[in-house]
């Protein structure tokens, strides 16, 4: 069994990134938007891991970065869900369009 070439993995991460991007821009449900953001973050994680493996196999910097990002993503998800819950309480909706009164 031969190794998967780097271009394949990069293709997956790029695809993941743009799927996430598409979801972020088209979905109105905030939970879905949050999931889209997770996709974007994970595409970055894949990039870090794969570049680490192919360019500097003897170092672990990329992997640490990935762990950091996962941690931060968890925190971010917690905050985002807190915001969403509050929004739901005040607006009875988690549609992002319904919370547009914070414009200048």
């Amino acid at each position, binding site marked *: 069994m031969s190794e998967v070439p780097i271009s394949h993995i990069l293709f997956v991460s790029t695809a993941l990134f743009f799927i996430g*991007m598409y979801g*972020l*821009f088209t979905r109105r449900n905030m939970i879905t*938007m949050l999931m889209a953001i997770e996709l974007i973050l994970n595409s970055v994680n894949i990039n870090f891991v794969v570049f680490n493996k192919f360019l500097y196999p003897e170092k672990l910097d990329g992997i640490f970065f990935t762990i950091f990002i996962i941690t931060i993503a968890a925190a971010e998800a917690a905050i985002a869900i807190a915001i969403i819950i509050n929004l739901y309480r005040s607006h009875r909706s988690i549609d*992002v*369009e319904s*919370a*547009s*009164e*914070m*414009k*200048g």
Partner: protein
Amino acid sequence: MVSGEWVEKQQLEMSYSSYIALIPLLPLASFVILGLFGKKYLPAGRQGFKNYSGVVGCLVLLACTLLSLYTAYHYFFIDGKVNDNYQTLIPIKYTWLSFSDSLSIDMGIILDPISVMMLVVVSFISLMVHIFSLGYMKGEERFGTYYAFLSLFTFSMLGLVVASNIFQTYIFWELVGISSYLLIGFYYDRPSAVAAAKKAFIVTRFADLGFLIGILILGFQSETLDFNTLIQRLTDVRSPQLLAIASTSFLGISLLTWALTLVFIGGAGKSAMFPLHIWLPDAMEGPTPVSALIHAATMVVAGVYLVARLFPVFHINGASLHVVTWAGALSAFLAAVIACTQTDIKRVLAYSTISQIGYMMFALGVSGYGGENGLGYTASMFHLFTHAFFKSLLFLCAGAVIHIVHSNEMKDMGGLRKFMPITNIAFLIACLAIAGIPPFAGFFSKEEILLAAWQNNTAIYYIGLITSGITAFYMFRLYFSIFWNNTHHSPPHSYRDTTHHPEGTMSMKIPLVILTIGTLLVGFTPFSNFISSDGKAFASEVHLTFSIVPVTIAIVGILIAYSLYFKRSDRPQKVAASLGGLYKTAYRKFYMDEIYLFVTKKVIFNLVGRPSAWIDRNIVDGTMNGIAWTTGKISVLIKGVQSGRVQSYALYFFGGIVVLAIVILYLWK
């Protein structure tokens, strides 16, 4: 100076420094306390809580007066004199703003004969007015505020007289101006009072501009603002500063003359000299005790005091001293003429104040420097001293009269002697004093002034002589009209039904009595032993033969007033009619107000005001409005971007990233 003497002087100054600062600071404290808490915690008028503010004010002033008297006693009788020469002491000096080694604005206290004399006059008269106001202002709604303002004035005036630095003088000069403004406009619901307050403030402020420019020239040329150093540098013929200021000329007049004349203009504004006098008669809109304190006895003599303070410098510059002389003589004469025609008793007194200050001014003007030559200087200060007593007495009597009659007009009065015997006697004595009848206070000082004028400038002497006759006439016109002249045809007035306290309360009578005693006694002060132009005492005696002419003229003036006003008759009208235009001109105060109105309204407003307003509205405001309009338009344009939709924000964000990425990847070299 020998070093031993110097050390002695230091010790002497130290001995004063422990309490001297309290004299101005006590009234300041009372101002702060009454101003902040007077309304809430010391209310007036409520039963059981009467006049607490007034009592606080009076007690503070009493302490202040006692300290001033103690200082005066110490200075004049115990340790102020060294080798027959009153020295200038500076017990306290604190550098406030320092510009260079020698040029600084200090807050200090100077003690020399005139400042000590002024301390006594200001605090004493202020005390009398404080006590008098207890009765006069009783039931006034803003009683506490009134006393706060009085304290503010007293603080400012005391600070003014002890100023050791010409800029300190200027600061306190403005402070007395503002307190005068506040007190003239005390009855702020009367439009005339508001107008009078504004007029007083603007006219004196205008004159103070001259004062400020004068200070700046003096300070720039002599490189100091300290009075002592300034006088020293500008009187020593060998000093480079004097050489520079006297040899530089502007428009053909030396800079020293300019500076002193400008300083004098400031003094003339405060002291209501022609033609800057127009504010003083209107200032009578204030409460009468205030007129007694500020517009008769203390603040208005600040100009005289200023010239006296700088007298050594004035003396070496004959031209500016001439200005002082003639402004004084002209004011003395014209104001006396106007006073003969006015019918508002306070206005008569106001014009008589202008006239008497004119006397003080020209006395300074004709004075020489040093020893017997400085007779005019001594006489001027003497007159300031005696005038403070009898003029404040006159005003307080007028206040008592107005309190009863509720009118300022002479025609509403007459025959009051039965109702107010104490006021009657006090007013009579004050009138005799101002008319210069021996042995009352005004006689001595006025004779000294006339003597000084006779020795130096005969023309001024004759003006003074005629004026003293007119003074006697109008003062007795006032006296007879108020207290005699009782064949009244008009319906009975409210005061005729007054059954209780016909003369006001005890607190109104006591100051009258004290000031009457003062008016009787102060004339006998051997003034030249204490105050002279160079600090060296000399003996001056009353020259009986010289006095014959002025006293005779004064008596003639009184007799004319007697024949015209003692009994009601139509003679005054006949005399007025026979004088025709002359009477009318004097009655309209030589049309000074009209001239001012013409100059300001027609000339300044049209030629300067309107073009400036146009530039301000169209060019200055136009530029600003244009900038605001542009900003507004741009913000409307970019407002749409901020939609409130999170996803469009994210889109801008990613768009920005993409643009940045393109820039960094392809365009960054």
